[in-house]
């Protein structure tokens, strides 16, 4: 602010209610003497938070005094209450203290309100007349050469001096009045406003602008600033309100979603439990009657309950076949459900894959009889593999039974071979083959490939889907290569070591 700032702030802190006129100081930018007018800004708790103030340049006063003619060889000096020279003959004298001149007579000037004394300079004697302004404590001094006084008529000079002193005193009073009206008042209003703002938090406060000068500018700037702050503050409050609203809404939503999720989760767990129960119950309830149907039909077919006619045998065979098909379907559905529910743990141990394949060949040999299709197996004598033998058999049987369904003549071949820690079992046929666009659908559930012209083939629609699930369970993979019209080759690829196999 100004070089008087520290002092001003100190004063304000001690007595915040007062408007303070600081001590004079030399302006930083001009040779002039300045005084500061300052008022403390205090918040509602009486906490000091700043100072509003301005500098007043005593330019007019100094130029007036320094240019004043006092007789022929005299001059005027303005000193403050401490004896510091505010205005002298020249800039050098400014802010020197009169005691610095080392003249005993000058002590009288500081000791009395008005009077005169003798001053010596360059072997010349001068009369120094002085008078003190009651308002400021400043003293105006007129210095006149002694010879001039002696030369002129005493009375004339004295009256002249008295008029001058009086008028100078009046001038200082006028300055003070001016200060009051143009400086102290507006600053008081400024501080009042800031006090009000601090007290009420109401930023919609402006100050009535009366003056066009710097104080007026200060006031306008202040008002402008208040407007800006007010605007920002409103925007801030709006944003804050919006943000809080959004936040509340968000929290509400999150809370609701969390609750929904918790509910859904409970419901899902319940559904999962019901599903498991349903599967367990279905596996028993559906199979029991089927087992009876198949069992008694077999008894009848074997003639154990008495002789049966050929027609009865034929029809009973159809009953048995349908019952077997239904049982197969039920078993597949249960298998798929259990695997999908993660309820199936493979039973892993070492076994000879070649033996398993031989068993499959044995089972199917009977079915191939009279069909005109040759079934062959090509496998090394021993392939020890760490896996689930029952599940591997299930997949290979599915492959072979599919091949049998779609092959009218030619051959079906089961092959197995090791390669780089894995074993690949293939079942190839010389059947109908699969169109390229159908291959993708092959491993989906209930997808049945229909060959035009060929009779609809009986199946569950779950065989390959289930085989794929089981293959994944055994850390293996299954796939097919096929040329439509020429035949298909299904394969199962498994790690030799289940525990070392990649998932």
């Amino acid at each position, binding site marked *: 602010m100004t070089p008087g700032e520290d002092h001003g702030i100190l004063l304000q802190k001690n007595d915040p209610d007062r408007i303070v006129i600081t001590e004079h100081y030399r302006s930083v930018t001009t040779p002039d003497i300045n005084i500061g007018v300052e008022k403390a800004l205090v918040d509602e708790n009486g906490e000091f938070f700043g100072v509003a103030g301005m500098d007043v340049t005593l330019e007019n006063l100094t130029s007036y005094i320094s240019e004043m003619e006092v007789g022929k060889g005299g001059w005027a000096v303005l000193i403050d209450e401490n004896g510091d020279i505010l205005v002298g003959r020249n800039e050098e004298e400014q802010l020197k203290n009169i005691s610095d001149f080392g003249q005993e007579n000058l002590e009288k000037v500081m000791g009395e309100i008005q009077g005169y004394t003798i001053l010596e300079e360059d072997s010349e004697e001068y009369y120094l007349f002085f008078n003190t302004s009651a308002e400021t404590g400043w003293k105006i001094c007129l210095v006149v050469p002694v010879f001039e006084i002696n030369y002129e008529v005493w009375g004339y000079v004295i009256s002249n001096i008295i008029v001058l002193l009086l008028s100078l005193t009046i001038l200082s009073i006028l300055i003070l009045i001016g200060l009051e009206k143009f400086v102290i008042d507006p600053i008081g209003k400024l501080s009042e406003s800031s006090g009000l703002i601090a007290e009420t938090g109401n930023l919609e406060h402006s100050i009535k602008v009366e003056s066009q000068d710097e104080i007026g500018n200060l006031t306008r700037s202040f008002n402008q600033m208040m407007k800006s702050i007010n605007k920002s503050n409103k925007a801030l409050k709006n944003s804050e309100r919006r943000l809080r609203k959004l936040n509340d809404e968000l929290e509400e939503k999150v809370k609701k979603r969390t609750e929904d999720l918790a509910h859904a989760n409970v419901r899902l767990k319940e559904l999962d439990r019901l599903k498991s129960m349903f599967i367990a119950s279905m596996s028993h309830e559906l199979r*029991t009657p089927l087992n*009876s149907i*198949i069992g008694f039909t077999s*008894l009848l077919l*074997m003639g154990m309950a008495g002789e049966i006619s050929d027609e009865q045998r034929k029809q009973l065979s159809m009953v048995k076949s349908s019952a*077997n098909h239904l*049982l197969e379907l039920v078993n597949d559905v249960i298998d798929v459900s259990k695997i999908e529910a993660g309820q199936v743990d493979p039973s892993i141990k070492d076994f000879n894959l070649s033996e398993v394949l031989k068993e499959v060949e044995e089972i199917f040999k009977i079915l191939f009889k009279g069909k005109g299709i040759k079934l062959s197996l090509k496998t090394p004598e021993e392939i020890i593999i760490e896996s689930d033998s029952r599940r591997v058999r299930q997949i290979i049987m599915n492959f072979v039974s599919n091949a049998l369904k779609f092959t009218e003549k030619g051959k079906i071949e089961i092959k197995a071979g090791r390669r780089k820690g894995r074993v690949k079992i293939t079942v190839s046929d010389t059947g109908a083959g699969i169109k390229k666009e159908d291959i993708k659908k092959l491993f989906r559930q209930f997808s049945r490939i229909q060959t035009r012209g060929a009779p609809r083939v009986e199946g569950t629609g779950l065989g390959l889907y289930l085989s794929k699930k089981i293959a994944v369970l055994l850390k293996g993979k299954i796939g097919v290569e096929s040329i439509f019209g020429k035949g298909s080759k299904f394969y199962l690829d498994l790690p030799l070591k289940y525990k070392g196999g990649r998932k």
Partner: protein
Amino acid sequence: MKKILIVEDNEKNMYFMNFLLKKNNYEVIKAASGNVGVRIALEESPDLILMDIQLPDIDGLKAAGLIRESEADKKIPIIAVTSYTMSGDRERLIRDGFTGYVEKPINIKDFLSEIKKYL
């Protein structure tokens, strides 16, 4: 004539096995629950037991265990008659004291040959 105990709660299954075994010259004793099965097994000392697994009171596993605990030196062959089972069940059944294992639906030839194995 060899004496076979059938522990089975389902009437039709019981009728089927009873019919099949009688036709093949076996004497049949029937029990419709696990507890009754255990009691008859210990009282009558049959030559072989066909044991259903899912029974109303104590299941076939527990019944077989109780028979194994209480019987004298002579070990009665106990054959489990189970529904289509997941792999691993066979091993568990043998560990739990069963001698053999027959899967439903019963294949007549397999069923009779499994019984013959232990008599």
